[in-house]
């Protein structure tokens, strides 16, 4: 058997045997916790978490550390803003699908201002000069607003915490983005790869301190991330925060609007 086939077989057998046992109905508090965790395939997810840890240790984290060390802060901020600007059509579409005309208008105005005055999105002029702050949206949130349940918690290596609803959302967002359809040829292809690579670097760099912190202080980082993800998603879906996390922070890669304000120095 070749290696991929072996791997697939290993994953399949793991996932089949990997169901967390539901506590007896008499133990009300245990059942409550089981439901709050929403993690029926926890053993499988923990295995994936371990795989992710290995990949992160040898590749993703070092790359993010190097990115922070090598690329000067203003350029990193510019890259984050430009990536955020490229997400604006996606955010706009989801604003509309969630019937939020005011937020949609802000996203649209920001996209126009930042793409032009902001030099292709490198500078968030919309917030800096016009006081129009950005926000994030994705199709996972839209599905939630439409009343679609999240399904069981999933931890996916490299991608991070998720669930079936948010995975579908990510796929729809990718396909619904105009950048998925426009352009062809080697240059466009190269730009797509550059965006993909930068998105991974930017997202991992954005959570560098947070994840280091969790790994340092949590007695069980797996459950800390799981609890954090589900709560933060709930708050993102409800649009409850004054500030939107600027980059990935746990909802898959690249959902933020970018970030630049004077008096708000670029990330370290």
């Amino acid at each position, binding site marked *: 058997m070749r290696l991929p086939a072996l791997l697939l077989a290993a994953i399949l057998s793991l996932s089949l045997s990997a169901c967390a046992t539901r506590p007896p109905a008499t133990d009300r*508090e245990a059942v409550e*916790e089981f439901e709050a965790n929403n993690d029926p395939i926890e053993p499988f997810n923990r295995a994936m978490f371990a795989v992710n840890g290995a990949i992160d240790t040898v590749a993703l984290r070092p790359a993010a550390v190097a990115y922070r060390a090598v690329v000067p802060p203003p350029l990193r901020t510019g890259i984050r803003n430009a990536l955020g600007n490229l997400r604006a059509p996606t955010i706009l579409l989801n604003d509309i699908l969630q019937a939020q005309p005011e937020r949609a208008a802000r996203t649209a105005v920001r996209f126009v201002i930042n793409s032009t005055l902001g030099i292709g999105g490198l500078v968030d002029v919309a917030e800096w000069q016009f006081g129009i702050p950005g926000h994030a949206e994705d199709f996972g949130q839209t599905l939630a607003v439409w009343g679609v349940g999240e399904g069981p918690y999933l931890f996916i290596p490299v991608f991070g915490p998720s669930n079936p609803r948010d995975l579908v959302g990510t796929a729809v967002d990718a396909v619904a983005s105009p950048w998925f359809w426009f352009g062809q040829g080697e240059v466009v292809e190269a730009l797509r790869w550059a965006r993909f690579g930068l998105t991974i670097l930017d997202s991992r760099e954005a959570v560098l301190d947070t994840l280091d912190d969790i790994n340092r202080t949590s*007695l069980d980082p797996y459950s800390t991330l799981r*609890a954090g993800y589900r709560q933060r998603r709930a708050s*993102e879906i409800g649009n409850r925060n*004054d500030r939107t*996390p600027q980059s990935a922070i746990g909802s898959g890669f690249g959902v933020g609007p970018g970030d630049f*304000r004077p008096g708000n120095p670029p990330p*370290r």
Partner: protein
Amino acid sequence: MRTPRPTRRLLLGAPLLLAAFPAAAQMDTGRAAAFIQATGEELVRVINSPAAPEQRRAQVVAILRRSVDVEGTGRFILGRWWRQATPAEQAEYLRLFEEVLIRNLASRFGEYQGVTFALGRSQLRTEDDALVTTVVQRPGSAAFNLDWRVAEVNGQPRIVDLVAEGASLRLTQRSEYSAVVQRGGNQVAALLAAMRQQIAQLR
């Protein structure tokens, strides 16, 4: 949705903002906000103070004991395992819980140099506690939302939870501690051992 800018200007404008909060029956939101404003300013002062680390740590311990419902929060976090613990385990747990809290706070002083915060909107959440929203700004990173859950404990406002970017610290930590207990064979002793080891590492 209003988006307050976390600047010193806003800090100065905070008393005005406070006056605008409507009074509520149970945990008065105005009182809760004033309490968070005062406690936050105290913490910021300690974090930015040039005093020696041990001295600052002692100051933080004093602020914490005065403003946080350590016992209530600790019991909430241990959740369903509290009743299963022996009285001796409960006592040790609360002692370790406070120690972890203090060490985690103290170890973050470096990264929070120059921190400022501004009150956001304040709203009453449940019957007996208020959620005070703030936006925290530290040099070199983006502003983030930090909400403080304030409850009345023995007639005094006390912090019972922190909510960062929508994630409640006490809910997250309850999940974490419960996982440690369960993976340690449903024994609270396993959690206490892990906490002891953590404190030794943070020393």
